């Protein structure tokens, strides 16, 4: 297993997709902060409303006809940007592409043939891929979080940083990491099932974006029996994860739900890989 892992990490190091993915995250975060900066400038009258396509509406709560004086940048803060990046599935989308490339490339290039039947059991081969994907996800997630924070510093200044509750931020990043690891496990399973890059990316993104609509529908259908599927689907938990005031029940449920889905994906992946011919 350690040999396979060493080779997988070497491939990751040599591949460009992980680093390109982080570059995209950096770009998105930068855009987000620039948008917030523009909102603040519009609100302060330094820029006209609608400049660069940014339109600021009055608050529905105050309905004063004014745009409000408070800084949107400070209101959203680092935590809010992190929430946009992780709960908004920005990083999930990029991760889906990176993991799909990482997994399906083995089938596309035929490199998987160099391993199967060469002294390693199929489950070992699959699990080494899964394990290296977890390491990839941890690196990607922490790097994406760090990038989001570092880019925010010049925009928020000392005031913004001092307003940030770093304990909450750390807990939020930790919970999101848990969800992203589970998502990565599901993406590996999808890659294994499809063995086609375009299909894998499409299905992964489909799951990421539309599965929550499906669980919402299931909520509606299961309403009478008092069961809420959204409470047990990790992507719903990912979207609904709070930024502060974490309840122990939510944290516990998140850990259990994530682990169950991850283990399920891993088991299904191993079974499929063991039973399916390698072309």
């Amino acid at each position, binding site marked *: 297993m350690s*040999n*396979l892992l*060493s*080779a997988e990490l*070497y*491939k990751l190091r*040599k*591949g*460009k997709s992980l680093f390109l993915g982080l570059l995209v995250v950096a770009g998105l975060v930068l855009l987000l902060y620039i948008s917030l900066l523009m909102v603040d400038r519009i609100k302060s009258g330094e820029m006209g409303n609608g400049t660069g396509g940014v339109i600021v509406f009055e608050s529905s709560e105050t309905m004063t006809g004014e745009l409000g004086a408070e800084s949107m940048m400070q209101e959203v803060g680092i935590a809010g940007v992190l929430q946009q990046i992780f709960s908004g599935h920005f990083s999930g989308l990029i991760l889906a592409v990176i993991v799909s490339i990482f997994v399906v*490339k083995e089938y596309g*290039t*035929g*490199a*998987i*043939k*160099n*391993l*199967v*039947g*060469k*002294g390693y*059991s199929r489950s070992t081969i699959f699990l080494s891929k899964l394990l290296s994907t977890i390491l990839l996800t941890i690196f990607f997630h922490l790097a994406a979080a760090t990038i989001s924070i570092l880019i925010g510093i010049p925009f928020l200044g000392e005031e913004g940083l001092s307003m940030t509750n770093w304990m909450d931020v750390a807990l939020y990043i930790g919970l999101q990491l848990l969800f992203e690891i589970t998502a990565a496990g599901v993406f590996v399973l999808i890659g294994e099932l499809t063995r086609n890059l375009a299909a894998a990316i499409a299905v992964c993104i489909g799951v990421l974006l539309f599965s929550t609509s499906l669980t919402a529908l299931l909520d509606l259908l299961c309403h009478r029996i008092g069961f809420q599927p959204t409470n047990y689907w990790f992507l719903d938990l990912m979207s609904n994860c709070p930024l502060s005031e974490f309840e122990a029940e939510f944290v516990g449920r998140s850990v259990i739900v994530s682990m169950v889905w991850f283990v399920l994906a891993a088991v299904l992946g191993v079974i499929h890989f063991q039973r399916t*011919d*390698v*072309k």
Partner: protein
Amino acid sequence: MDYVLKTEGITKAYGGKLVVDHVNMHVKKGDIYGFIGKNGAGKTTFMRLVAGLAAPLEGNMELFGSRELEKQRVRIGSLIEQPGIYDAMTAWENMEIMRRNFGITDKQATDQMLEFVGLSKAGKKKVKNFSLGMKQRLGIAIALYRNPDFLILDEPINGLDPEGIIEMRDLLLKLNQEKQITILISSHILGELSKIATNYGIIKEGALIEEFESDELKSRCRRCQKLVVDDVELAVTILEERCHITNYDVPEPGMIRVFESLEHSWQWNQELVQGGVKLMESYLTGQDLEGYFMDLLGDAKYV
């Protein structure tokens, strides 16, 4: 007999259709076994079964005399269909991945293997910029990395230029003779295959229809006069006594093959008829290998 590969009734089906049909193959230690068949005959699927990339529907297989296939497959190197290589990496990086996968601690092994297959000068060139021949050589380097005792090569000379074909032939002969590696090789270029193969297996519609040695093949392709007669005993007496023929055989009842003095065949025909033998057929025959295989496979289009 010391078999590297022995299969009994190996069968594989896709979608209810048999693609490998009860194949009994015998590859002896030291053989270069030429595996011949049309496209879709089941060659690649059979090779994938042997390499463990696919599971058979039924049948038994022995590798190196053992049925512990997982254990024995470590001794196999294979290049089946396209070489499994990462296009965006260099040859060295591809080999480095294999070195790590196989836990080979000697870092020089990569350089040595690239040198062995003639890719040491490929340098920083990405594999996507390689010629087909270079890719094939890299595929073979990967297959050879753990010093296998048995090499499975599926169409390794496909698409190579004449120089590449000669290089590949020399490489395979070197592996077989110097490193005593047994080779199972399929190819559509039968003339080329006949220059290295010691044994042949012919597969048709999933079934292995014949296995024979290269000497037998040469004998079958030898130029001769075939005579189909009613009385072989009488015909042989006439050929020996009146025509002084000694180099002949009787491959099947009613048929004589004469291998000498073929330019005088019209005279034997006369003698046989005058001696009271009913001569049903008399024709000069002898094929090149490709012609022979075409006949065996049932039609002229075998590739």
